[in-house]
């Protein structure tokens, strides 16, 4: 990645508001078998803010993201210590019901992964499964509202029964976002949501993320530093499992406190 500070257009960087803390992570350590992948991460995700997690490949940013909805549970040999408090709940509590957690913390993945079902069924599946809505008009309204919030309504309104996999890559990803917000989460996790998309679709997704941050707390992993600068109020720089620096985005990109952060965002390694 080659980029220098001058090329980064920081005029669009959202200014960090003084928001309350939504998720407080304290001294989170994670091991894959013997590999110490996260080393004492302490950071607060601010409510209704976009927090970007940046860093070179393998630095632990995706791993950290997956701690927030316990997706790491699926991986064998993972051990996590520390605490991640959302309100009064410790998300790392082994007794925590992860199914319930995931209705509060939704996730959008790197590769658009709609179910090979109709657009309608893609959205309605989880709300119906969780019993959030009843079949019929209540469900129809939720589907429409979710798709509208994801900015996809005009494109799919007349073909809700068409297959979700028939959409373009960018549309699929917005469908996945609609699917995630249909469950009425408080937090949205996005793991490189635009890395598989073309520049125009990426721009659409970025605008959408900005809009969604009014209603949701968003954490986004990205390799695209401009993207972080464009969408995120806060940015955390991870390196080799350590959280090197965490501050509001303007600060990180214009006046990083750490040498390694500066080296990374100016493209000296990464």
């Amino acid at each position: 990645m080659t980029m220098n500070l001058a090329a980064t257009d920081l005029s669009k960087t959202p200014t960090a508001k003084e928001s309350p803390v939504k998720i407080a992570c304290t001294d989170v350590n994670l091991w894959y078998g013997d590999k110490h992948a996260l080393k004492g991460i302490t950071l607060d995700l601010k409510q209704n803010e976009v927090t970007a997690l940046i860093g070179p490949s393998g630095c632990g940013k995706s791993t950290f993201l997956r701690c927030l909805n316990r997706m790491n549970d699926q991986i064998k040999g993972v051990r996590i210590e520390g605490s991640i408090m959302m309100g009064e709940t410790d998300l790392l509590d082994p007794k925590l019901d992860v199914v319930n957690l995931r209705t509060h913390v939704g996730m959008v993945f790197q590769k658009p992964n709609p179910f090979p079902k109709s657009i309608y069924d893609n959205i309605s599946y989880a709300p119906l499964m969780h019993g959030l809505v009843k079949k019929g008009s209540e469900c129809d309204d939720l589907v429409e509202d979710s798709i509208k919030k994801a900015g996809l309504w005009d494109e799919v309104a007349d073909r809700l029964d068409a297959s979700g996999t028939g959409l373009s890559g960018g549309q699929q990803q917005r469908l996945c976002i609609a699917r995630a917000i249909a469950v009425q989460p408080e937090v949205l996790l996005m793991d490189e949501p635009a890395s598989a998309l073309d520049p125009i679709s990426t721009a659409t997704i970025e605008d959408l993320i900005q809009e969604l941050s009014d209603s949701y707390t968003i954490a986004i992993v990205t390799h695209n530093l401009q993207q972080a600068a464009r969408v995120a109020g806060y940015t955390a720089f991870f390196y080799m499992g350590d959280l090197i620096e965490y501050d509001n985005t303007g600060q990180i990109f214009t006046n990083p406190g750490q040498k390694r952060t500066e080296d990374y965002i100016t493209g000296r390694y990464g």
Partner: protein
Amino acid sequence: MDMTAEMTPERRAELDARVQRKLKKRYRAAKRFHFYCVGSLVLAISFLAFFFTDMISKGHSAFQQAHVQVDVDYAEKNLRFTKRAIAEDMHDIVSRGWLRDLRRVKKENPELVGTKAVAWALADDEVDQYLKGNKDLTGDDNTVEQKALAARIDALKADGKIKMKFNVGFFTNGDSKIPEMSGLWSAMVGSILVMVLTLLFSFPIGVMTAIYLEEFAPDNRLTQLIEININNLAAVPSILFGLLGLAIFINFFGVPRSSALAGGLTLGLMTLPVIIISTRAALRAVPDTIRQAAYGMGCTEWRTVRDHVLPLSMPGILTGTIIGIAQAMGETAPLLIIGMMAYIPEAPEGFLQAATVLPAQIFTWAGMPERAYVERTAAGILVLMSVLILMNASAVLLRKKFERRW
């Protein structure tokens, strides 16, 4: 040549020449490889073509059967000693089996009793085979009686009193020691009963096992051992499954010998590893992104499998199952051990009655000396092959129809 030298036109030319020389060789090798592949294909197809031509040329005549017109006297006393019902010179022309069945007239068509009528009777297998050109009755080696018989047959044929009809009995009769009376019915019923049981037994157990191993089981020594064993079982000679079935189902659980139940359980055991392996492959082909999407929105593992993974892998699972069942359908060796190579004239009426299956019937007929059984063997193979081709074609269609690209 000095490979580190500066590039000059001469050096360029020399390098090109080298590449050219090598290139010719490479093209020749590619051509040779292509030729070997096409050759193998041609060879394989010609074997198959030879097999089919042979079977069709030997077997097609079994679908026709000679019938002879006779005057029948249905007098009451004749229906006990049925040879008296027809003229004496027809005794060696009409089938013994047909004459035997005249006894049933009293029960089935009581209005015929006491009358005289013309009927088309099934001809004796010797007559049938003579007319089909399979058996020579007029050659130098034949006896005078045989030559006289041939003359009478020719005369009847000239009068239009003998003709070939579609061999309905081949599909509606069970096995018989009278060649012209023997058919596939009881073997077909047996095969269907056995296949139903095989499917009922191996499909649910196989699919559930595969789901557990693929989606839920921890990856440890034990599951690895189980996996190796399952792969191994798929390659075990089928006759060993027969011995296992004999020991477990018949000797230990007391399942009746020769029964469709014993056959179905034994073949189910044999099909199990095939279904497990193909189901696991189908489950593995479902991309992980789908599972993550489901987990990410709060599906439990069980919901993820039921609502997303299983529906997507169903075509693959069904394809594997059909292929496994088709394999079981053509299986003979294990059934030999559990006594299904039996003489079954009447179709079984339940899962506990003695039964035989198509390949076993074919095997039995193949050992019979009469010429009529030879064509029945070939015809039986044709029937079995048609069923198998149908099953495999449906597997291919299923796969094509639901094929999904990610």
